């Protein structure tokens, strides 16, 4: 707090507090490093989460009873549990049974499972939405069950799943910020560290801006996908 603060206009004080140029310059490298971590995690979570979800939905299509019960339970539990709970269990509990995972790995695994649970349900709904006649037609031409699933059913099912999957992937990927709680140096982790060192709110503002830069394009694309989807089915 310097003397000048008392003579500043509210607008100047706002800039000084949340957009302090000196603070920005000092902590930009740290936040950028955090940005790379968040970006890596985001890409990894989206790819592995969607692939795992797709695989589970395909497995479910074979309708093997015990397997399906397991898949449904997995999807339900992962959808009902707050990710932060799993993050704390994995990060603080697992080392005591001999499994030490980095914060990065914990976030990756937990969010992959969370996204996979939602993705499985979305893909499954998509598979169910394809008319039974498609199965019958494909099987009548001699395609095997697996061939039918992969080359006839999935291509049709996937189109319907794009808008909800996009929304869900954004929501889960945003949860990478939870890594801050277990000391991950992602955007939020870097920003909170910087905030406590600098005694300024500017790093938090930088973090908010970084997340908006990262996610806003996807939110806008999701909105566009949804309106296109509705229009097609109107």
């Amino acid at each position, binding site marked *: 707090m310097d003397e000048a603060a008392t003579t500043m206009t509210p607008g100047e004080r*706002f800039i000084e*507090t*949340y957009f302090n140029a000196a603070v920005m310059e000092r902590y930009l490298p740290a936040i950028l490093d955090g940005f790379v971590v968040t970006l890596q995690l985001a890409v990894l979570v989206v790819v592995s989460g969607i692939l795992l979800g797709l695989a589970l939905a395909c497995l479910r299509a074979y309708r093997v009873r015990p397997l399906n019960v397991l898949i449904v339970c997995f999807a*339900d*539990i992962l*959808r*009902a*549990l*707050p*990710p*932060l*709970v*799993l993050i*704390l*269990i994995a990060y*603080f*509990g697992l080392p*005591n*049974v*001999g499994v030490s995972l980095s914060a990065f790995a914990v976030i990756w695994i937990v969010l992959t499972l969370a996204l996979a649970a939602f993705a499985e*349900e979305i893909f499954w*709904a998509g598979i169910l*939405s394809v008319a039974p006649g498609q199965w019958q037609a494909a099987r009548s031409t001699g395609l095997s069950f697996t061939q039918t699933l992969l080359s006839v059913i999935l291509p049709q099912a996937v189109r319907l799943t794009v808008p909800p999957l996009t929304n869900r992937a*954004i*929501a889960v990927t*945003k*949860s*990478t*910020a*939870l890594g*801050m*709680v277990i000391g991950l140096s992602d955007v*939020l982790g870097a920003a*909170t560290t910087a*905030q406590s060192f600098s005694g*300024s*709110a500017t790093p*938090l*503002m930088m*973090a*908010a801006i970084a*997340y*908006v830069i*990262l*996610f*806003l394009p*996807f*939110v*806008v694309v999701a*909105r566009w996908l*949804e309106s296109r989807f*509705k229009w097609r089915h109107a």
Partner: protein
Amino acid sequence: MDAIRQQFFDFDIMRQAWPMLLEGLVMTGLICLVVIPIGLLAGIGAALLSLSERRIVRWPSIAFVDLFRALPPIVLLIFVYAGLPFAGIRPSPFEAVAIAFLLNNAAYYGEIYRAGILSIGRGQSEAARSTGLGAGQTMLYVVLPQAVRNVLPDLVSNTVEVVKLTSIASVVSLAELLYQADMARSVTYNASPIVAAAGIYLVILWPLVRLVSRLERRIAA
């Protein structure tokens, strides 16, 4: 195997932590009681504004919704709790949670209502207006009831997300369920209290998750 049982499923420790967990559960319930009704109402407001015929109202509203859909809730919460005091506003942890959830929920519930309202054909409001109902009455008595019914699964599903999200209140030291469980963990050096908390979340939310699935199937049918 035994190590896993001791580390995650130590029932003695769970029993010791139980009173703490209950306290936390009460706080979690309290947060939900405040943020869910407010969010459901604010969402209607956000939806109506983002569907306004006037561009000067519609565009800022859509920008607001997209902005808060792009921000991770935990970032928003930390910003409100740790960032606002720099501007002279010092919210308590509970107030910070309420403010952050209000913004986040208005955006998310708002998008759901918006989709619901858009799903109602123009004929419905034309019929209502032709009988002399005003724009507000038409929305309240004709469009919204149908819109809500169409998006009920999404509303319930988002409410599940909100309940799950209350766990981030622990990062601003609000003594809700997960915070209490983590306190118990740090005292006992054992993850069982958090596993117990996970069990509580499951008991509350699993039925809701099932309900969402069932509602979705009914709407699709």
